[in-house]
């Protein structure tokens, strides 16, 4: 079959090597001699980077666990007014990148913002008369990241709760446990692998975040890498710093893999269809609805309203041809990257299906590691070899033909598209895998036995079945690229701006209101995959196995924080 489709193992291996290139480059720099900048880092800053990054991770863990588990349990196991709509509204904060929510709350809660202004007006306070929590702080960053990252824990945990056999919980009751006790002794331990997976995904995004911590002035690895790259113009130190960050990421990857493997042993398949929910009434129902509404209100509606307000307030200046130029740039980049990523994912997906060898599956695994790697690291890992290649080529052309090739690779869209593909290939791979798993190998055989040629099988069976999958995969990559900030900042060609970059620049210039329009645009487009996702969640406990795969797509799909 493989030979008929024309897929060769070496294609897959080549893709894997190319996709792993940025990481290999970064790791290679560990072997480079450490220079005086590194010594300076080590003496003064590295400890701060590490402690800030760890504090962020601990804080975000607490935040996403509390919001995610409570909302997951309430919507999965209890019945209260508004449960159905809340169970998908709870996903909405995923559509807001962390740096954008950070801008909105800074605008709202700053000294000059409406909240403090109103308080001063009410109580007739002046500057320094009162204490107000500082948004632009480590605590503030933890809150911002938690508000947009808790849906990872929510989705995974909710799916786990819904998958739990009703009879397991009933068994704990016949053995003398009250519902609440059963929750802690059975439901939570059974969902633990899912919870850990959700937290590790949220922490990967936390480590990858650049926009929020940069805006709040917190020194972490990503801001440190930027400082070394731009401030010190020291690519070696930047790469070495990136490799330290990489070790944190590797720990998270291992944690995630481990918990996913463990989840297989913890799975209980329910024979009884349907979920029996505890009927909540009175004040219990009120508090359940409130607990599920607060994350949505603070994680989506307030920031979205703020963005809308800014957009309307600045509409005459911001919605001009310049803005549409930005939108066109973003559209171009996101479309190109989506097509490349989905095309590669189709090759990898079919290779895995048709050539089931350990080599091929290892290559596919390597190709899909990018979801865990911060955009900053990938960007540097792409920039360094490309710049080196450009220099070498330029020198050779000059000396041989007296020609200059300039920045052929490193200064072009090619570098950006490549970085996006590395980062988001896993998103499309998972979507394609999920789609292919619906086409059983016996269907290929059935097609052949009914007189179809291999091409006919592809055209008449695979294409109609895969069409929706391919569209989904394109959309998911598209949205992720749109939101991506740090890689775009590093790799964009000179004077090439996107929506995300514009929002970042405006915010950095303290022109928050002008950041509104591009940010709102990103959020609006980001809602589309959430709606797709919520549709699959709606059916999730009916055919939970298939949907679990589809959860996976969206879970890893997001470069939220930039």
């Amino acid at each position, binding site marked *: 079959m493989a030979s008929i489709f024309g897929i060769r193992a070496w294609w897959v291996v080549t893709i894997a090597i190319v996709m792993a290139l940025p990481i290999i480059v970064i790791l290679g720099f560990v072997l480079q001699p450490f220079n005086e900048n590194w010594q300076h880092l080590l003496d003064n800053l590295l400890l701060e980077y590490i402690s800030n990054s760890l504090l962020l991770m601990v804080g975000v863990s607490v935040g996403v666990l509390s919001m995610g588990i409570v909302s997951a349990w309430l919507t999965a196991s209890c019945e209260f007014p508004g449960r159905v709509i809340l169970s998908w509204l709870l996903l909405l904060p995923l559509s807001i990148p962390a740096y954008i929510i950070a801008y909105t709350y800074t605008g709202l809660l700053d000294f000059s913002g409406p909240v403090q202004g109103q308080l001063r007006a009410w109580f007739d306070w002046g500057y320094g008369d009162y204490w107000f929590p500082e948004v632009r702080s480590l605590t503030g960053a933890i809150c911002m990241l938690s508000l947009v990252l808790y849906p990872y824990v929510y989705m995974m945990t909710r799916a786990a709760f819904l998958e739990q*056999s009703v*009879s*397991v919980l*009933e*068994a*704990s*009751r*016949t*053995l*003398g*446990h*009250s519902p609440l006790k059963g929750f802690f*002794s*059975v439901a939570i*331990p*059974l969902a*633990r692998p899912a919870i850990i997976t959700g937290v590790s995904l949220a922490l990967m995004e936390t480590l990858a975040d650049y926009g929020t911590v940069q805006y709040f002035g917190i020194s972490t690895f990503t801001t440190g890498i930027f400082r070394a790259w731009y401030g010190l113009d020291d690519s070696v130190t930047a790469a070495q710093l990136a490799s330290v960050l990489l070790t944190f990421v590797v720990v998270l990857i291992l944690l995630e893999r481990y918990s996913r493997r463990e989840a297989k*042993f*913890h*799975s*209980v*398949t*329910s*024979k*009884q269809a349907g979920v*029996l929910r505890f009927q909540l009434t009175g004040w219990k129902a009120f508090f359940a609805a409130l607990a599920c509404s607060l994350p949505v209100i603070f994680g989506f509606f307030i920031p979205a309203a703020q963005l809308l307000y800014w957009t309307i307030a600045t509409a005459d200046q911001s919605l001009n041809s310049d803005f549409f130029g930005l939108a066109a740039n973003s559209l171009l980049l996101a479309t190109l990257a989506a097509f490349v990523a989905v095309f590669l994912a189709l090759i990898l997906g079919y290779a895995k299906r048709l050539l089931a060898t350990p080599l091929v599956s290892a290559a596919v695994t390597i190709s899909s590691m990018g979801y865990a790697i911060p955009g900053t690291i990938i960007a540097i890992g792409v920039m360094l070899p490309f710049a080196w290649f450009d220099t070498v080529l330029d020198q050779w052309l000059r000396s041989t033909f007296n020609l200059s090739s300039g920045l052929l690779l490193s200064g072009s869209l090619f570098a950006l598209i490549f970085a996006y593909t590395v980062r988001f290939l896993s998103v499309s791979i998972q979507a394609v895998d999920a789609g292919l798993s619906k086409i059983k190998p016996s269907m290929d055989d059935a097609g052949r036995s009914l007189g179809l040629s291999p091409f006919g099988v592809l055209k008449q069976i695979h294409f109609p079945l895969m069409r929706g999958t391919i569209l989904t995969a394109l959309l998911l990559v598209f949205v992720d690229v749109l939101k991506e900030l740090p890689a775009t900042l590093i790799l964009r060609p000179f004077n090439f701006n996107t929506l995300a970059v514009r929002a970042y620049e405006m915010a950095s210039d303290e022109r928050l209101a002008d950041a509104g329009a591009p940010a709102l645009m990103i959020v609006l487009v980001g809602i589309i995959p959430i709606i797709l996702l919520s549709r699959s969640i709606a059916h999730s406990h009916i055919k939970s196995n298939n949907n679990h795969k589809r959860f996976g797509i969206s879970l890893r799909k997001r470069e939220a924080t930039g």
Partner: protein
Amino acid sequence: MSAQELKLELKLELKEVNLTYHKQAVVKDLSLSLEDGEIACLLGPSGCGKTTLLRAIAGFKSLHSGSIESSAQLLSSSTHTVAPEKRRIGMVFQDFALFPHLSVGDNICFGIRDQSAQTRKQRRRELLELIALPECENKYPHELSGGQQQRVALARAIAPRPRLLLLDEPFSSMDVELRNTLAKEIRRILKHENITAVMVTHDQHEAFSMADRIAVMNDGQLLQWDTAENLYHSPSNAFVAHFIGHSNFLKGIVRGDNVETALGKHNYKKQLDQAPDTSLEGRQVKVLIRPEYILIDKDSKQTAELVSRDFRGGFSLYSLSLQSAEEVQALLPSQANYRLGNSVGIALSTDTVSIFVNDQKRL
């Protein structure tokens, strides 16, 4: 024994239980009681309400009306439902519902966590011995075979010494052979521990090998609550006769103390579906003839033609066409390989037959 003592002896007493599901009646006016140490079985086709009834006994479902009591304690009524965890009623689930994050030993001890460490350890060892899996104490559920999981689920349910044990289709996921051995094994364990139990099944053979008494249910109603022998030989109505075992129904006319069929004159037993005071004289009734009641008797004047044969090993099930043009099935030893198409003389091995007056529409 006083009335009160008698009531305390009743491990389960259902009084006119009515259950509804989405406003439709699924169990109707069902009453039965179970004595200490008895193993009962709710038997019936799927959708007859037996599982719903079991869940009501466990406390997962509230009653529409009626009551459920155990040892004179009210567990459920239309206004009051004791929570499942407060009932001391154990349950073995259809999918076993073992806790996958706990070892076999910890699964078994889940319900006795409040007891002293010493007691727990002793009970754990005792139960592992009882279910013959002492080497599996530290294994996890996914490492066990289906039959082993089943036995662990049983041990877990009986560890707290429940007043009553419920088993929901406990053998449904097993192959026939395993079913038989496990049913015997579980009956041995229950009897050893003197546990009162209610099992739900749709398989009469499971019911026969497990239960002391069987409640045959159909369409939410209890049709007969009896021993397996009586269900088979003296079914109280035509549904039970039809549902349990193979059955032939012949037309018969009641004449005096006898009923006349194409096979001759027989004594008959009065059945529950007959009003006691009505005279049956001259009435046309249905007469139950089990296939093994029919014998080959060369001297008999009653003859029948052999129409077809279904080889079953030691016995063959023959279809016989009677002179009355009625067809009956007969279970005959398979060594005597009768030629199809021949006529043979037949007789009945029993003098007394069951007759039914009411036509059960659901047949």
